[in-house]
């Protein structure tokens, strides 16, 4: 199972295993990793699953789509080039060891 290393809003780190196919948001919420809300459950409607992908891995996850970018534009934590809505990143073996930093404020 691919792993994800989260840096939580309080600075703590947590590494968890993800089901292949599960999104980063889903993995965090189900395991109680703090900081990701995921209110719309992956519906790409709430923007409460904002993360920053490690700079070395953004090419593997891919960058935010146009719609995602629009959702993030006015996010409470200002977006950067590395911002993604984590419900839109599906875990796979290619992403094993993914490192993401959870945005401090969601919405």
């Amino acid at each position, binding site marked *: 199972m691919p792993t994800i290393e989260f840096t939580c809003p309080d600075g703590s780190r947590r590494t968890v295993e993800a089901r292949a196919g599960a999104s980063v948001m889903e993995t965090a919420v189900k395991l109680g990793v703090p900081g990701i809300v995921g209110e*719309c459950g992956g*519906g790409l*409607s709430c923007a409460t699953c904002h993360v920053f992908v490690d700079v070395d891995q953004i090419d593997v996850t891919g960058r935010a789509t146009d719609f995602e970018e629009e959702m993030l534009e*006015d996010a409470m934590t200002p977006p950067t080039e590395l911002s993604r809505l984590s419900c839109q990143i599906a875990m796979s073996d290619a992403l094993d060891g993914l490192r993401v930093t959870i945005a401090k404020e969601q919405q």
Partner: protein
Amino acid sequence: MTGCVAVVGAGQAGLQLATTLRTLGYDGRIVLVGAEPGLPYQRPPLSKGFLAGTVPHEELELRDPSLLAEQRIELHAGRRVVGAVLDRAGGLLRLDDGSELAFDRLGLATGATARRLPVPGADLPGMLTLRSVADAEQLRAGLADAADIIVVGGGFVGLEVAATARAQGRRVTVVEAADRLLARVVAAPFSAHVRTWHEARGTTVLTGAAVAGLTGTDRVTGVTLGDGRTLPADLVVAGVGASPVTSLAEELGLDVERGIVTDVAGRTSHPRVVAVGDCTVQPHPHAPDRLLGIESVNNAVEQATAAAAVLLGHEPAPRGVPWFWSNQGDLRLQLVGISDGYDELVVRRGGSAGEGRLTVLYYRWGRLIAADVAGNPRDFTAIRSALAEGRTLDPILAQDTDVPLRTLLTEARGLPADAAARA
């Protein structure tokens, strides 16, 4: 503090109540009893990705069992509570296996059940409703070998099912009794926009069309309308709303009016009992003497979070701005605030907003109270922040789609009562 909180109903609201009790530091027993088998799950994908087959079952589940174990939440799945009594110290639940469970505080999160069509033939096989994962599995199997699908009811669930079925190449007809789609929740320009989207994809939309009955002998073969016409159907899906489940609350003597009467934080008429989610009705934000049923994930989560604080004797956090989403194929709708009671409308469309996008802003006494947004997340986030911060938007300037809404937000003056009611 020891003791036991019992939560009846293990859906979105019940799970949130149980887990929040623990994160707020409650150390006693938490028992979550749910009539459906399996882990607590989210319903929104049932009419969308799960029905389409793109979202697997695991993705519906709200929490991993390891987290529930870690939080010491005792889940009794597949168990129905069939009776309840309250006494001075707490009360007792009776379960359908004959066992009993004593509690000192109680949460009711019994949700709602899909309404059935009140017409002859409504119990024929091939006539389905959609509320549970079991319903969705049945519907998905039914869609696989049906050619003509009739969706009765042009509300969110019905339209989502219609979009999913149409994307699979089925012939789809939506039959709506009102004169437009989503008539109870959105203004006419928004209804028209949604209708155009569905019609452009080949769905037939009949409005002002009442269903008189279903035809068929051993399974449904058609839908007869009020004007006498019969439309052929291999599968009929009724999306005609849901009724709050209130039987336990009634048995306990709580105030019930359509739903269990609560405040925004889930307090019922009994100090040891909270009720949360779709089973409740709560004060209308613009008309506090009226009661409103808010069937949304946002309400389930926020009301349950507040109710957990209430049960522990803490002050609940103020409620945020209510919002809802509905995805119908690539038509993405985001509704924010509560529009009913508006006296002025502003429509933003065209220009630089781009094709297929529409925002309808609702005003009351000159002040922004809500918006319905199609395909324009920038407008949605700007309006959500405006409402959360008690700000408004000039209704004339807001019509100019070349100006981003977020640059137009100004402090709302006067009439602070509405803002206070929203908080």
